[in-house]
């Protein structure tokens, strides 16, 4: 009897003790963060929202012609070029000068670097006007800035884009003085400016594959010169390119090379002999920009340019090749 009583008491005590202890002793959880993984710092859905926001601003300004609003989502060369395009379009009275910046993308190249500035790139689908797709570069200067459209180029017809890492993984940015490339991005753009200016006479000509832009200037210059020579005015045509101060943006390609986007300015000069020869603006756009200025024997057209090129890795035998450009006349003068 006593034994069973004791036992009962013990059992009851144990049950109660267990219960009470269990009630109090639940451990506080501690944060168990996931380990950082290599991934794009911008997700595709975020990129989509960014694109929508930029496109909204671009679209709104296109309608309202209130270029001041562009600064909210455009930056650097893109802002400058778009303002020019808007000005030209306004002068011409049509929208042809405006590059189609609708942002339906066939490919996005997202940044993997956690530091700022961050750059992302995107390639649009073929625009409705059957012009070539546009490669856009976006930039987030600091963490408290928004992503802004920094620049764009129209891809060359039939160009093959280099391969990039999976969008989800992100592609690292390439600094402008990166040595792992055949030529650093900054040098590449300098060299290309030289090549565009003097073409095959440039000492860098061997680094670059021939391309549509160089061919365009050859054809265009020849056309202008021939036209002037018909009047026996001894025409000449000259193009000068030079990089802007605004730095380049470069992103690593899958093969270790880089896609480099850079802005330049250029000036083409068409001259005829002074006596008895007067030449005017050559194109519809330049005519619109010309206004009612007096004609002379000189036409100077200033352009704002963007070029995008593929720079292969250092040990590659490939040449640097242009993948796209934008060439927007910004002003015309009679010299």
């Amino acid at each position: 009897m006593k034994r069973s009583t004791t036992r009962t008491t013990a059992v009851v005590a144990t049950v109660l003790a267990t219960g009470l202890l269990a009630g109090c002793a639940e451990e506080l959880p501690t944060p168990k963060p996931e380990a950082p993984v290599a991934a794009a710092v911008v997700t595709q859905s975020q990129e989509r929202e960014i694109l929508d926001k930029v496109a909204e601003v671009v679209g709104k300004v296109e309608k309202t012609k209130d270029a001041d609003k562009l600064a909210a989502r455009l930056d650097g060369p893109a802002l400058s070029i778009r303002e020019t395009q808007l000005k030209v379009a306004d002068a011409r009275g049509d929208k042809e000068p405006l590059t189609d910046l609708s942002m339906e993308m066939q490919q996005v190249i997202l940044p993997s670097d956690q530091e700022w500035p961050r750059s992302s790139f995107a390639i649009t689908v073929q625009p409705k006007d059957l012009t070539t797709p546009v490669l856009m570069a976006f930039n987030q200067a600091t963490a408290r800035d928004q992503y802004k459209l920094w620049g764009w180029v129209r891809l060359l017809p039939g160009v093959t884009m280099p391969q990039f890492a999976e969008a989800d993984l992100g592609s690292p940015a390439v600094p402008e003085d990166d040595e792992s490339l055949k030529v650093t991005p900054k040098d590449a753009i300098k060299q290309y400016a030289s090549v565009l200016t003097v073409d095959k006479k440039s000492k860098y000509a061997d680094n670059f594959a021939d391309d549509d832009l160089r061919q365009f200037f050859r054809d265009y210059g020849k056309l202008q010169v021939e036209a002037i020579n018909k009047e026996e005015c001894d025409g000449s045509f000259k193009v000068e390119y030079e990089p802007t101060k605004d730095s380049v943006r470069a992103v690593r390609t899958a093969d270790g090379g880089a896609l480099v986007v850079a802005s330049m300015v250029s000036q083409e000069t068409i001259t005829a002999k002074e006596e008895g020869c007067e030449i005017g603006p050559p194109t519809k756009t330049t005519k619109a920009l010309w206004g009612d200025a007096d004609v002379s024997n000189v036409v100077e057209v200033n352009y704002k340019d963007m070029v995008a090129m593929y720079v292969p890795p250092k040990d590659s035998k490939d040449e640097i090749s242009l993948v796209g450009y934008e060439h927007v006349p910004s002003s015309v003068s009679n010299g």
Partner: protein
Amino acid sequence: MVQRILATLLILAGLGGIGYGVATATVLRESDTVVATATPSGDGTMVVTEPGVLGLVDDQVTVRATVPEGQKVTLALGSDVDVLGWVGDDPYDSVTGLSSWETLSVAPGTAPATEEGAADGEETADASAEKPASGPDPAGSDMWISEVSGETTVSLRWTEEPGRVVLLAAGVGKDAEAPTLELTWPRPVTTPYLWPGVLGGGLLLIIGVFIAIGARRNKNRGSKGRTPSAVRTRQPDSELPRRDAVFGVDGDQSGPSGHEPGGGLPPALGDPVEGGTAVFPPASPVLPGRGQAARNAPEPEPDQSRSWGAPAPFGGAAPITPPPAAEPAPGPAPAPVAAPAASIRGIRRRRGQGSGAAPADPTQPPAQPTPFGGAAPARAPMAPEAPAPAQAAPAAPAASDKPMTRREMRMRDQAQRRAATGAMPTVPASEPEPEPAPEAEQPQTPSSRAAAWRQTWGVTGNDGGN
């Protein structure tokens, strides 16, 4: 006494167990949510959670941020890199985890890589750190996964996703202060003690109740049947009246119930002096000639032991137990006859009836008025002898009316066949009465049941005796 204490303890423990089990599911049940608050330390206008804090308790978290009335506050969710990048060199508070279930631990955020710079121009750094002229507003950044802005209080729900998502809460605008954060997580609450508590407690309760009942019975019996131990006598004194009353009622009410006390409560017989006797007489009238005669005839003591299932312990005459009940069966027949029959039958069963010396029968019956208890053992030895078996024959008929009719019949037949005619007279006498048997049976059942119960729970009559 001890039984009572045990019973009380068990009942209390049972009730306690049930109560505790229920309480864990009700009063003591933990909250369905964990609500933890972070109070900013005062520096800066921003509070940032560390990676993993949002998913600390559950994947679903509701964040509420409060700033002084009328001020603007913004909540934003983003990757830790983005958020810390956005915060930059500004001072902020970092929520590092739970310091209790109600409180979040807060530490001054460590501005990345600014310490060297701070060493250079500590004063300027501090000056700028302490009070930003105006709290910057993170609202609208492309980097946020989710955000909300509002005045005074805003809240935001978030379901944890893969990645290192952290929360940025910022007081915005002039004289902004860092908001007070409140994180609320749902928590699955289990009640692991509910059913164990209720079931275990219930079991203890039941056991306790049974013991209590057993104790009460024992006491009744013990108090009436015996005088020896001081403990026992003392108790009964106070309790006896009540018990007697109970039994009196039982006895008065009906035949069957009257039997139970009769079988189970010989005390009345043992203790004629007490009120019990008064009660009993009425019971006996219900069943006039039968049990009463048999019971009364023997001495009280042995009877008692038998009725409590004690026969088994005594002299190994277990089989005899039924007989007492059987005795009444032969109602019509003279009581003496019936009694012997019962006892003999038991013997016969044990021994088999190898020797069919029926002739002795006639003589035996009369001699057996004291078949009970003590008598049984005495008889056992006799069984082997011729006379005993003989008795079996007469006994058979008497017993046959009870459960084991067929076998009894067979035996009786055999006995008849073998036995000399002399045995016959007795047999017919017992045979005639059919009815009484069933009735007699009933009284027995309760007592035997009680005995079984007592054995099961270890509450044998010994307890009382010891």
